[in-house]
């Protein structure tokens, strides 16, 4: 496995991503919406000294939760399946590169532009907030962007799993959109329903919430963004009291890392085995 080959492949993938209409559409809409949300936010509050950013952070988190998983899942899901459908995957693999290099190159080549798009949206919104006099703790702002990168990485991995199992890109997109719905709405809905129906306690609800990478991102963002973890209710207070603020953030980051590494490994193993059978 050569780093140089991975970088060349990643570069090729990135250039293709930048030409991808989905990608451009998502980047532009994410940036526009981020700027809009933060520009209707109130400026520094004279009485409380709270900046506008703190209170609108929730809307920004919501925006990230809707956009980032969607773009990561969809671009991930068409990464391999698209090339397989076009026949370019065979062509690519006929070059003197290993499957590992192709896989890693593709992952990097898609992840990097997604992360830069997130950075673009946050940056534009941040300029807006700063010009209107909101102080918005700069470090927290950057940390939220970094958390969004982690969210993108984990869902891109999941997208790759979809991709290696799909022969056609259209089918892969369908599965990706369903997964998006599952992760963003249906999964949480299921946990809430279970919690009410089975009268689950604090620990169980916390454990179940940890299953969902999007929910993990949200909890981490709230903890990073504001000192008010009690906004998360008894479960949040329980978690912070039991593990400490840093402890909880560590757990949440670990969950996101697991959600990145395991699907990535699964996708890669499947990719290498599958190709061998085909040829």
């Amino acid at each position: 496995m050569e780093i140089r080959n991975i970088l060349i492949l990643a570069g090729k993938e990135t250039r293709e991503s930048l030409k991808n209409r989905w990608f451009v559409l998502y980047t532009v809409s994410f940036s526009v919406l981020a700027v809009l949300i933060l520009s209707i936010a109130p400026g520094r509050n004279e009485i409380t000294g709270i900046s506008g950013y703190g209170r609108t952070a929730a809307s920004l988190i919501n925006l990230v939760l809707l956009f980032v998983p969607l773009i990561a899942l969809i671009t991930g899901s068409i990464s391999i399946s698209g090339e397989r459908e076009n026949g370019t995957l065979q062509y690519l693999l006929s070059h003197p590169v290993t499957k590992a290099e192709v896989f890693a190159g593709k992952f990097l080549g898609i992840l990097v532009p997604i992360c830069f798009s997130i950075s673009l949206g946050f940056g534009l919104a941040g300029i807006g907030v700063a010009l209107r006099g909101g102080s918005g703790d700069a470090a927290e702002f950057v940390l939220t962007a970094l958390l969004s990168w982690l969210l993108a990485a984990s869902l891109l991995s999941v997208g790759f799993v979809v991709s290696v199992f799909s022969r056609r890109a259209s089918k892969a997109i369908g599965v990706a959109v369903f997964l998006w719905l599952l992760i963003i709405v249906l999964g949480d809905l299921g946990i809430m329903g279970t919690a009410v129906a089975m009268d689950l306690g604090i620990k169980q609800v916390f454990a179940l919430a940890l299953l969902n990478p999007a929910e993990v991102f949200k909890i981490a963002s709230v903890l990073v963004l504001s000192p008010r973890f009690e906004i998360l209710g008894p479960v949040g207070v329980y978690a912070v009291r039991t593990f400490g603020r840093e402890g909880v953030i560590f757990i949440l980051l670990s969950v996101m890392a697991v959600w990145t590494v395991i699907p990535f490994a699964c996708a890669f193993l499947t990719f290498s085995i599958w190709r061998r059978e085909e040829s």
Partner: protein
Amino acid sequence: MTKCFLSYLYAIAVLTLSGASVVPAFGTTIRVSPDGPVSSIAEAINSASPGDTISVEGGVYHERIVVDKTLSLTGVNNPVIDGGGTGTVIEIKAPGSALKGFTVRGSGSHLSNEDTGILLDTAGGTLIEGNRLTDVLFGIYIKNSPHTVIRGNTIRGKDVQMTERGDGIRLWYSSGTKIIDNDISVIRDLVIWWSSDTLIKGNVVEEGRYGLHYMSSNHNKFEDNVFRNNYVGGFLMYSVDIQFYRNRFVNNRGVGTGYGIGFKDLDDVVASDNLIIDNRVGIFLDNSPYLVDSWNKISDNVIAFNDIGVSFMPSIRRNAFHENSFVDNDEQVEVRGGGQLAGNEWSSGGSGNYWSDYIGYDENGDGIGEIPYTSESLFESLIDAKPELRIFVFSPVAKAIELASRAFPVIKPEPKLTDEYPRVRSGIPPGLRTGGGEPSAKLIILSLSMVALPLIFYAYMRKS
């Protein structure tokens, strides 16, 4: 009630007695200075007769003082009395005394001994003015001393864990006391025990447990105070006839409490023109009013940017909320344990409250919406009934549930409350919502680099 009555009698008795001794300043003045001839305050007190004035020059006096006769102690050029970290620094035991212009520091730190900066014991009608207290366990402790005046003092307690702190100001059977324009921080409570007809005005209380705490103290009033960054802004308990106006309760966020203002077994409250902002819970109502013929009147307040605007314990009745502004609270009204509110009043004479989440219109321009405001959110009903689910707040699922309950009215919950005459304009004072600040250079630089990096990257990728 007997106790209350007795304390009244006591207050009247002491006032009459102290009135005689406080008025005429007939005594002589004794001068204390580090350079002598009298270099100790205790020595001066020993040689003084009741009614004398003791004038203390600037310098540090390492002593603990007991004022056992009616005297007026005046600090000139900010003298410091240092208790050396044990016991109570100044103890005043004579009615009609005065203590002005001192810095008092270094009390002991034993809660069981109630080590205090300035202790008034049976010293009604005393004036404590313009002192600075630092590193004290209890700040000013007013015991059995009615009609005392505490004005313009700064109190800063010991910066230890909350459980080891003492009260900034404690009133104990001291009716008719006035606490005005003090600046109090890093303490446990400002607490009023068994004292009526007190006035608390223009104080700032920060970084404590209860910014203001009434216990079994009737007919009291507080106004124009600021309670900021405490566990609880004000916790009013077991009292009747409390009025408060124009106070600010801001950012009180203790874990498990975090009330801007909380009522417990509290009757005949009148609360107007207060700003209750950015607390965990704006107003918390527990078993209030307690008496069956009592109503609490809460009007013209701004309850804004709290996690929960007003939180009701189950079956709370007879609270009248009129012409308040409920602005952008994450949850405007919570009913603990779920369900609907009954027996409270949300409008009178055709005028209700302003609700920032009101979806309606004012056709005839009278400032009152034509459609009633109803608080009915499926997600809120869920988290009221099962608080654990609050962890899903801000998640898209919360919005999805609201959308679903609008689309399928079958699963729409019963409204928690209905305001028949919602106001369409808030009473929020100008400057509360927005105010320009300086652009943050750090944020601009970081944001610019967050924008510039991807653009450079895109440009580079295009070229190569």
